[in-house]
């Protein structure tokens, strides 16, 4: 193509002979073409994620170049009928707009702001939904306990066979104690921890994503998961092992259950905005609540990594119930402090 072409070094040759153009609108275009192509080069470098390639003077001129291109587009729409130029300008301005008004901070900057207060602010922002989720989880485990206490056959329908692993009603205290024991070696624990993390995060993401349907599936998921926990709790309590079981659960459970609580809360938050959008249009309400829920969820992933490490390593290697309970308690205190301590407000990005 015989365009005024720019090579790798971003050299833009001005059009040879502006006066040769017979049409007024073509002269308009030729006079401004160099600026458009400078903007084009900057935008291309930004799109490729290589802002260092841009020359200093181009960076300084970027706002001017952008405004020139937008005003060129506005003028060209009213004076030029050259479809190719209009297409080019529209696409250029749109690309430039996406870059200039794109996310201002990178992933690292976002993460810093997120951990430094954005996350806990989002969590505090959905407190009502967290309370609903907490109620459902407590209710679920109580229901599980009561069902199995009345008729222990319920246990088999509440806890799938592969999950029980010998923890069945009527099992001897010895056999139950065995399921809580540690491993004497650390082999394979990394795989176990990784597996736990990816599995639990999958469940948490599901709890959030299902919130889209007015939050009802999220609530069912929360109740269902807690019913089987309540049922298992009853089995251990029958054998007089409630303290050992609670400690065994608390090591990672305080972190993991809290993460599931937050994920469920985020799902309910989204569902609630769809069912009761208030004065706003339903789409706007869903979008605000959805992004806040997503921030909570991003944090849940971090919590579940920590939970998986605790479950995969600490629980398998530390045997004494007292130590286990201490670890769990410390983690719980840490999370509660992290979420509840007020911090300097952060501006939204």
């Amino acid at each position, binding site marked *: 193509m015989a365009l005024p072409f720019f090579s790798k070094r971003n050299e833009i040759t001005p059009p040879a002979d502006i006066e040769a153009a017979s049409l007024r609108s073509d002269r308009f275009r030729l006079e401004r073409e160099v600026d458009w192509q400078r903007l084009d080069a900057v935008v291309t470098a930004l799109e490729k994620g290589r802002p260092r390639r841009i020359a200093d003077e181009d960076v300084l001129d970027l706002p001017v170049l952008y405004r020139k291109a937008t005003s060129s587009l506005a003028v060209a729409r009213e004076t030029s009928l050259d479809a190719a130029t209009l297409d080019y300008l529209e696409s250029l301005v749109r690309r430039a707009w996406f870059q200039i008004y794109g996310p201002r901070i990178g992933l690292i900057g976002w993460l810093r702001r997120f951990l430094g207060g954005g996350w806990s602010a989002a969590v505090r922002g959905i407190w009502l939904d967290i309370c609903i989720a907490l109620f459902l989880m407590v209710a679920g485990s109580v229901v599980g306990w009561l069902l199995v206490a009345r008729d222990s056959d319920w246990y088999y329908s509440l806890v799938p066979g592969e999950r029980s692993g010998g923890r069945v009603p009527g099992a001897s205290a010895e056999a139950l104690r065995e399921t809580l024991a540690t491993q004497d070696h650390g082999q394979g624990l990394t795989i176990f921890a990784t597996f736990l993390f990816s599995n639990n995060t999958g469940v948490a993401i599901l709890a959030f994503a299902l919130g*889209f349907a007015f939050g009802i599936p999220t609530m069912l998921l929360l109740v269902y998961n807690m019913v089987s926990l309540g049922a298992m709790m009853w089995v251990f309590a029958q054998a007089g092992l409630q303290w050992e079981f609670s400690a065994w659960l608390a090591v990672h459970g305080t972190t993991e259950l809290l993460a599931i609580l937050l994920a469920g809360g985020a799902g309910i938050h989204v569902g609630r905005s769809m069912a009761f959008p208030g004065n706003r249009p339903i789409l706007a309400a869903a979008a605000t609540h959805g992004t806040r829920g*997503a921030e909570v969820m991003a944090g849940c992933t971090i919590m579940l990594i920590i939970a998986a490490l605790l479950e995969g390593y600490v629980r398998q290697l530390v045997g004494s119930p007292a130590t286990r309970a201490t670890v769990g308690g410390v983690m719980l205190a840490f999370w509660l402090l992290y979420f509840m301590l007020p911090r300097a407000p952060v501006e939204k990005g």
Partner: protein
Amino acid sequence: MSAVANAMRLDADKRAREVLTPEGLSLPMTIASRGARAGALLLDLLFIFLGFFVLIMILAFAGLSLFTLEMGEATGPMEAVGVLFILLIFLSRYGYFLWFELGPRAATPGKRLLGIRVAARPVDGRTATRLTPAMVIARNLVRDVEVFIPSFFLIGGGEQAGVAGWAAFVWLAVFVLFPFFNRDNLRAGDLVAGTWVVEASHAKLKDAMSVAAPDRSSEYRFGAAELAVYGEHELQVLESVLRHGDDNAMSEVAQAISRKIGWQYGGADDREFLESFYAALRAHLEGGMRFGKRKADKYS
């Protein structure tokens, strides 16, 4: 042929939107078609699949077979491979889309190939807003129930599970078919995140028409009545014919124009005739524009 072209243009008109930038400029956007979005998704899934395929082949050549891997028994390098694999599966399910859509192009490789990208939906239907990381995270978390769970469900033969299976099937179908029931082609994740997917065209600046062609206004003189026949739409069709430069098309168009304006044009040089007519018509129509008179097409 022209019916198909017409239908495509109608569809593109239906997908055209305008957003207002902070500068007060209305910026045209085109919503990505459902076909393009489905194609992009399939491409992305294909890339993920191929990546895993290559990885498994490399491991097999290195003498490591994943199928003999037993949890808890693996030691040393096998443990590392197992961890790597679980993490990779996790990341390809949740991380792949997230990573690419958080980049400066806001598009996964599949989306890029099909020329579409993610953008923030205007809040009040008009004013453009910026895309934030939280939006991208939200739309990709919901992707799980829209893409992965239905596909696992179908692969796992979940539809054979009787009434519960049917209920689950209908339920998941609601998510999958969601884009067909709103005019912005939003999927559930877009709705929750406040985003939409638009076309991201990357047009090159083409030559100026009146520089490429010499000025022949003294050889071909068109009168005002002759130029009043056509409008802007016909001018732009003529422009695309000239830029395309196909001889048959040019001679056909030249015949049609000369018939319409009542010239006895011998067909000496189609390009020359068309370029002169184009320049004259454009000067005429643009002159009208400066006085606020516009003529959209030959019927107006």
